[in-house]
């Protein structure tokens, strides 16, 4: 199994290192050819306007969207959560248009509002997950087909829709591999179908 990591901009090596610890092979995705033969794709955190523009300039937006529609498992982190979404409040920025989610960018405010906290995420087991939110977005509304895995005061922070997984915090900035393992399980389940 080989997992692609969109490597245009952002926290790329953290995902690479985390997957390496789980003995998973990764490939940096910079051009459409890099998508060949991957079993799943990670859209890492970074600056969503930058990544969106580069996706378009390098003809990656439509190929990734097409793979997503065909069922390729995709994990979108922070910026990735924004890119996966169909609806972004107050923004015309480029997106993959895959998940039935309504997203608010920089929803907690500027950097001073960035925070870390232990949160209980039932699908990941009993032990709380140490979440790190950096100028994070959240989802304020979801469609019927979206399963909410973590929410707080009406803010959806972790959600799933069929082959797609969107997370507002940064599991790659911790040593906890459980979000990535959840994603890998998803890939295994999808390939069995």
């Amino acid at each position, binding site marked *: 199994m080989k997992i692609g990591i969109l490597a245009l901009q952002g926290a790329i090596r953290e995902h690479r290192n985390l997957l390496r610890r789980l003995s998973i092979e990764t490939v940096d995705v910079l051009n459409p050819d890099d998508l060949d033969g991957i079993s799943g794709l990670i859209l890492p955190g*970074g600056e969503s306007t*930058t990544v969106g523009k580069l996706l378009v300039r390098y003809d990656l937006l439509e190929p990734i969207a097409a793979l997503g529609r065909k069922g390729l498992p995709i994990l979108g982190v922070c910026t990735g959560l924004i890119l996966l979404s169909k609806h972004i409040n107050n923004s015309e920025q480029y997106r993959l248009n895959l998940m039935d989610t309504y997203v608010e960018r920089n929803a907690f405010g500027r950097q*001073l509002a960035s925070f870390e906290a232990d949160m209980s995420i039932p699908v990941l087991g009993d032990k709380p997950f140490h979440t790190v939110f950096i100028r994070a977005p959240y989802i304020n509304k979801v469609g019927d087909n979206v399963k909410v895995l973590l929410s707080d005061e009406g803010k959806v922070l972790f959600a799933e829709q069929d082959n797609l997984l969107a997370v507002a915090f940064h599991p790659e*900035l911790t040593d906890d591999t459980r979000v990535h393992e959840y994603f890998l399980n998803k890939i295994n389940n999808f390939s069995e179908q």
Partner: protein
Amino acid sequence: MSEINKKTGTFAVKTGLAEMLKGGVIMDVVNPEQAKIAEEAGAVAVMALERVPSDIRAQGGVARMSDPEMIIGIQQAVSIPVMAKARIGHIIEARILEALAIDFIDESEVLTPADDVYHILKSDFKVPFVCGARNLGEALRRIGEGAAMIRTKGEAGTGDIVEAVRHIRRVNEEIQRVLGATPMELMTIAKELDAPYELILQVKGLGRLPVVNFAAGGVATPADAALMMELGCDGVFVGSGIFKSDNPAKRAKAIVEAVAHYKDAKLIAEVSKGLGEAMRGQSVAQMDDKDKIAGRGW
């Protein structure tokens, strides 16, 4: 989740933002219009300042923190992070920038230092700081004070990349020295590099600097930016190089692409076509020492 549980302004949250900027370009802008051009070109952040370094050089005088009104105008114009510069050691300028909810403060040698002995104790702040460094010891002293991000100093406002190259090579060589040393040798190395011993141990454990390290000071072309990435920088600051060139929008976009694809020479050749004249600049080798600003910082 209880609100009490949430921790803001921690070192992890500060370095977290720096991690998200990796592989990106941070551009100096002096007004909202330039900020919009930078965002449109794909900048990951903008640095709001009143005069770009080449103008500070040309006009002389004391260079200070920018007018808050101008900073707020830029914050309102773009959705990407906004950084701003405080003078070395100027605690109050830094507090003002924090009060403006700036996303990152650059305690910068490009401005005229306010304190010629001490730097700001950056761990006292909730907002993250970036600082310039010419070598590993300087980088680790700044991290020791709480900096969440490092950049090469280069020689700002010259358009000459040679100093930035010198600084990243120096940092890389000194990291290699730490990695090659036995535990017994590390205290003496810390002493020789003027670096905090605990942070030398961290470098040894991690195999790299404990925080993100960007290039700055002299980047003028897409090729310059890609060179700094090739030498191991995590991203690039471009100061005077964009808005002092013939076609800022096109050059800005080209530099963004060259950084994202720095190993792809064909692509860099393509984006480097027809950019018009780069900033004229000045060769650092021809400059008097008194005109160099990289020496500011203690």
